[in-house]
């Protein structure tokens, strides 16, 4: 390589998969003759594939699917690169190519350094073996030597917090314990280049914090790390650079904040459309410059509603609720006139959502019952706000930005307030 600082160079790689489809008749009636013909066709195709030495694909029509298309980029030594993109964008395929698990269809990759990949937590764990034995098994599978594992054994056990169960078969562990043990082993992996796929989203909050801390240590230790995650907050805090994939193509590359910005811009104000004959026709949620807007389009032509009482909950990406409101519980808007078909809009002026991905659940009902609910049906993703506000990231201060007034009070006034408080109690 001309530039010794480049540790990974990817040139025009593409990866093709073959996918099969089964054509079924829409009316669901499949006569014996249809079935026989279909199976005969499928058998003939399989026989032909075998004769040509090709892979067998189930189904009666075969289609090419390009998981990655003409991807080129470079990574320098010590960079921590975040890979973002929606589901099916080709992120995991890219990691599989880089870790040599599968081969590209076209193109070329040059890697200078030892690669370890962590595509799944607990790969190769054997349920019958004890925790102690699995540490050595999993370590060896991830590419650690026995002496390396032995040297870090106590640390691993300590990190996982499973001292008491080291001689218990892993199948008797709770799933949380298994994940902790697995991550503890992986966290002590010390390759020159580390590929990580969406493994931070495990365990309880405290353990996640520990994992993020560990990942941060790895990132700061000068290793080259490639990280796939849907947790934009952790990507922002861990990565220096990023690339954005969409349908197998590279859309953006550069600093992590510019890439996350591009990613959020690509996600339109999230919205969901329902069948036209339903009570609720469309819901949408997004954050404007100064407020969060939630909308629901309803149609009361059948006269089911006594009032379009719209309520909502906004959750963090992991499902924990952040804020919500139900006007019906406060008996609000009961005498406001409303159209039979229309949109009900809720504007939240404070707080604002800070950077991250949030989901929204929506409800429709009157003060006595809920007639419609759709949980986690919308996504709001925010990025770049922390930077523009010059504020601390959500990992430190929580997901919302409060509207705040500050005053300066003289001491005697404060004392007065305290007096009142005492006299009231």
């Amino acid at each position, binding site marked *: *390589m001309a530039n010794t600082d480049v540790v990974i160079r990817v040139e025009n790689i593409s990866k093709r*998969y073959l996918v099969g489809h089964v054509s079924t008749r829409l009316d669901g009636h499949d006569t014996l003759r249809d079935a026989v013909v279909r199976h005969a066709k499928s058998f003939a195709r399989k026989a032909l594939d*075998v004769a040509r030495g090709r*892979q*067998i694909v189930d189904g009666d029509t075969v289609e090419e699917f390009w998981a990655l298309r003409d991807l080129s980029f470079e990574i320098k030594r010590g960079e921590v690169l975040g890979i973002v993109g929606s589901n099916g964008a080709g992120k995991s395929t890219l990691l*599989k*190519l*880089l*870790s*040599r*698990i*599968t*081969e*590209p*269809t*076209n*193109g*070329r*990759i*040059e*890697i*200078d*350094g*030892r*690669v370890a*990949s962590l*595509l*799944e937590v607990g*790969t*190769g764990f*054997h349920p*019958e*073996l004890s925790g102690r*034995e699995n540490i*050595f*098994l999993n370590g*060896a*599978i*991830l*590419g*650690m*030597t*026995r002496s*390396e594992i032995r040297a870090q054994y106590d640390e691993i056990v300590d990190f996982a917090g499973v001292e008491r169960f080291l001689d218990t*078969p892993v199948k008797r562990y709770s799933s949380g314990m298994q994940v902790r043990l697995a991550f503890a082993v992986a966290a002590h992996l*010390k*390759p020159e280049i580390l590929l990580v796929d969406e493994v931070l989203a495990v365990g309880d909050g405290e353990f996640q914090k520990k994992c993020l801390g560990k990942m941060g240590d790895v990132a700061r230790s000068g290793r080259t790390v490639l990280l796939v995650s849907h947790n934009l907050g952790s990507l922002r805090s861990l990565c220096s650079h990023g690339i954005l994939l969409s349908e197998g193509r590279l859309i953006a590359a550069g600093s992590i904040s510019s890439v996350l910005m591009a990613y959020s811009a690509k996600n339109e104000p999230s919205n969901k459309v329902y069948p036209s004959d339903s009570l609720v026709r469309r819901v949408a949620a997004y954050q404007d410059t100064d407020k969060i807007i939630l909308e629901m389009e309803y149609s009361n032509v059948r006269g089911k509603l006594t009032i379009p009482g719209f309520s909502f909950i906004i959750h963090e990406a992991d499902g924990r609720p952040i804020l919500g409101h139900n006007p019906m519980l406060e008996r609000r808007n009961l005498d406001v006139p409303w159209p039979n078909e229309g949109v009900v809009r809720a504007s939240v002026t404070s707080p604002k959502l800070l950077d991250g991905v949030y989901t929204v659940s929506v409800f429709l009902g009157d003060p006595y019952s809920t007639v419609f609910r759709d949980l986690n049906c919308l996504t709001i993703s925010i990025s770049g706000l922390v930077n523009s506000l010059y504020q601390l990231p959500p990992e430190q201060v929580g997901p919302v930005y409060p509207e705040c007034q500050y005053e300066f009070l003289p001491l005697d006034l404060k004392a007065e307030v305290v007096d009142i408080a005492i006299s009231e109690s």
Partner: protein
Amino acid sequence: MEGRSVPMQIIESGHVEKNYWRDLWRYRELFEVLAWRDVAVRYKQTIIGVAWALLRPVLTMAVFTVIFSRLAKLPSEGNAPYPLMVMAGMLPWTFFSTALSDASNSLIGSAGLIGKIYFPRLIIPTATIVVAFVDLLISFAILCVMMAWYKFWPTWQILFLPLFVFLAFLASLGPGLWVTSLNVKYRDFRYVMPFALQLGLYVSPVGFSSSVVPAKWRLLYSFNPVVGVIDGFRWCILGRASRIYWTGLGVSVVVIVSFLLLGIGQFRRMEKTFADLI
């Protein structure tokens, strides 16, 4: 792992790995660990544990002795007691069949690993053969007890036994690699293998001596690679009582080596697509 630098890797379609065999050597610890895992879990959560490894060969030996010696009145080799001759044949056969069937299913059984981690895939089928080797050692201990019981002492020929163990290993590895890689693509082989091994038990000289086979068929019979291995085992264990048919052994070795080359070739050709197909 730290500190040791590796040459630059190039990944592209159809790229032939120059360092494949050296890579294999570097992953020897993984091989050891996987083999150890297979041995360790073999008899977990069973009541009599390792006793299974003793019970199976002893019972089979007893049944074969009754059927082939008492009922069919087949002769043993020289003055060797019939049960000893059966046991000497069962050692390699059990090794061969366990190794071959485990190796054939090994890749599919490790689908999780193959899809998530890179390592030379050759490790998986070879590691499973270690389990068969452990069983072989246990059976060998039974054989020693039996030889002491019959006061049948081995000659210098037993020193060649490791050579034939290695031959048995190669004999199972070749078809094992071939079948396990095809199994990834065409699952039909999963059903073919148990059936083929069942037939193999009857066409191989396990319950009887290969000297029973008419002389004019002897050469053709040796195309079954297991024949050479079993004859070799008997020659080593039974000493002067057994006479080996050297031409037949040569044929068996040639067949074994060709299968091995075929197996490795097939495996290497398909190796890079395993993760996509499995």
